């Protein structure tokens, strides 16, 4: 049973405090903006301008045409031209180049027969992205080659712009960081400053206190979602193919899930600093395993099971589905159920532990 009057009093108080806390206020808008720009521009899985060394041992008309063509693709940028493969090792080790393309003396002959690979590529495997890019070059549709390149049809993101995949997921990442962190810190602050000791001698109930403190953050989460969407559409020309209402509905579901995680954390932390550390501890697996950074399908089975527990995994599927594939929220019902279940479990534990932590 919740007394609305007391609930409003707590919400109002929280908003007043927030208004005076300039740092938090700046973070509410600052974090999404900065992260969007960083992730949107910097995370680019399509590698361009790899520094490359060319060892053209054939030095024929055909080999020179091959080098020119591959350079035009902008995947590589020719940094060094060598006569012998011996120098490659030093360049790679020093990091001066990431790949080396070796054209053998019998290039023309191999090309004519078309039955075996006619160039060798040495790639710096210490960076997985470069390794991937090297394979990309290997499939390069060299016009004179008789080997038919595989044509990849890229649905939903034909230009293969990373931003398109990153930005919707970024809404989830930003909400994870701010919602969980702000809530945990806000509740622990109340205890650390001694406010809680006074409040529990008043008729306020633990549940009212939690809900009252969390409600303003729901609003903040929606503001952040709006900031990311606006910047995404404006800067990265992000399409919103599904219904905008459903985008917000799924954001709301996720906000509540992230908030309950924050409340749960707050019942363990004694100081604001501890709360912050614990919140960060939950970020890493979510960001790494949710499919935001690395493809879900490529993860080992155990990691996939773990990822299924994390709310961000479900939100990323939900938001990518709605925004990029114009899926309806009904088609993704399983993900919404998962978010609701997570919220219910986290909240139940939090309220249970919150009572105990007072004694």
């Amino acid at each position: 049973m919740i007394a609305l009057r007391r609930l409003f009093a707590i919400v109002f108080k929280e908003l007043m405090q927030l208004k005076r806390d300039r740092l938090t206020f700046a973070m509410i808008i600052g974090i999404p903006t900065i992260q969007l720009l960083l992730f949107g521009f910097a995370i680019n899985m399509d590698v361009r301008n790899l520094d490359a060394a060319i060892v053209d041992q054939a030095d024929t008309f055909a080999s020179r045409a091959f080098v020119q063509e591959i350079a035009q693709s902008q995947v590589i940028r020719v940094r060094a031209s060598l006569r012998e493969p011996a120098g490659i090792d030093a360049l790679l080790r020093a990091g001066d180049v990431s790949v080396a393309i070796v054209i053998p003396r019998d290039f023309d002959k191999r090309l004519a027969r078309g039955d075996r690979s006619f160039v060798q590529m040495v790639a710096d495997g210490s960076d997985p992205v470069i390794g991937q890019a090297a394979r990309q070059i290997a499939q390069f549709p060299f016009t004179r080659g008789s080997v038919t390149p595989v044509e990849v049809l890229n649905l939903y993101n034909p230009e293969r712009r990373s931003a398109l995949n990153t930005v919707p997921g970024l809404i989830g990442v930003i909400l994870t960081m701010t919602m969980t962190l702000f809530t945990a810190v806000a509740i622990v602050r109340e205890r650390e400053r001694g406010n809680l000791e006074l409040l529990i001698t008043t008729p306020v109930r633990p549940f009212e206190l939690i809900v009252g403190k969390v409600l303003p953050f729901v609003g903040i989460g929606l503001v952040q979602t709006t900031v990311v969407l606006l910047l995404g559409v404006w800067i990265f020309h992000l399409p919103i193919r599904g219904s905008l209402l459903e985008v917000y509905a799924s954001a709301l579901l996720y906000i509540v899930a992230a908030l309950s995680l924050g409340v749960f954390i707050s019942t363990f932390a004694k100081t604001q600093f501890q709360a912050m550390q614990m919140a960060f501890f939950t970020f890493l697996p979510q960001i790494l395993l949710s499919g935001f950074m690395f493809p879900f399908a490529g993860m080992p089975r155990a990691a996939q099971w773990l990822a299924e527990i994390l709310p961000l995994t479900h939100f990323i599927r939900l938001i990518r589905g709605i925004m990029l594939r114009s899926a309806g929220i009904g088609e993704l019902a399983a993900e919404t159920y998962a978010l609701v279940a997570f919220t219910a479990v986290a909240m139940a534990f939090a309220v249970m532990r919150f009572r105990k932590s007072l004694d």
Partner: protein
Amino acid sequence: MNAANGIAIRARGLTRRFGNLVAVDHLDLDVPRASVYGFLGPNGSGKSTTIRMLCGLLTPTSGDIEVLGLEIPEQAEALKRRIGYMTQKFSLYEDLSVLENLRFLASVQGMPHREAKARIDHLLVEYDFADRRNQLAGTMSGGQKQRLALAGAVLHKPELLLLDEPTSAVDPESRRRFWDQLFQLADQGTTLLVSTHFMDEAERCHRLAILDHGRLVADGNTRELMRDLPYRVLLVETTKPREAQAIVRTMPGLAGCAQVGNALRVLLRRDAHADIAALLARAGIESHVTEVPANLEDVFVVATTPAAQEPKRAAGAAP
């Protein structure tokens, strides 16, 4: 019903353990209504733990509590509307103004709007915040914060006010004003339970309980505690107080010997008829001994000195 016959708080055998530590040890308490009842004791003597148990914040390990006729902790929810609580640390919101803090508390206490507004206006004047209503609580002095905390605690006109070391961070002038306000509340019928480690504050209370290591070592009417102390208080004026102290410390029946300027304040059992002046003269120390009335510090020293416990208990059992 205890509530009817003028007892606000009644506790029997109240005990609280934290692991192996016995924070409160079989405490019996009777706090009469409309009076100021003091809890005197050093840090760690169990004052805060007792107060927290009395308002239902902490569950006792054993013992019975009845506050305002309610069984605690079973009826703690009902009690919450009838008590005010002021913590050691300032526990209102530093980033809210005076007015916002009071409005928040009024809403949380469920006071009707009109009543809350009138009550807050009244308190702002009475507690001298009329010009500071929009000042942030965090920017005020220790004395002002504590006055605001008191205003917050009495906002809903509680019958019982529990104050846990309310004046530990306050200058003497503010403390005097604060105590005036406490007595005014007692006059209006409020029962006040105040914990403190200041003797001058404890001396102001109508009744007093002295706690030491979780046990109640003395309680009663403050003036009677001082009057009925089974010890003589002797002021020994001498030119060599340090040497004299070494000799006095060897005397039997001694509860305390403290230097006060060039004199020694000696607490000696009434039945120990030793002549301090003669004893010191034999050691070649000149002195002048006068008997003075006991003050509360003397009561406290006797109550918390293990060697002085036996005669005190015997004296306590006599009436």
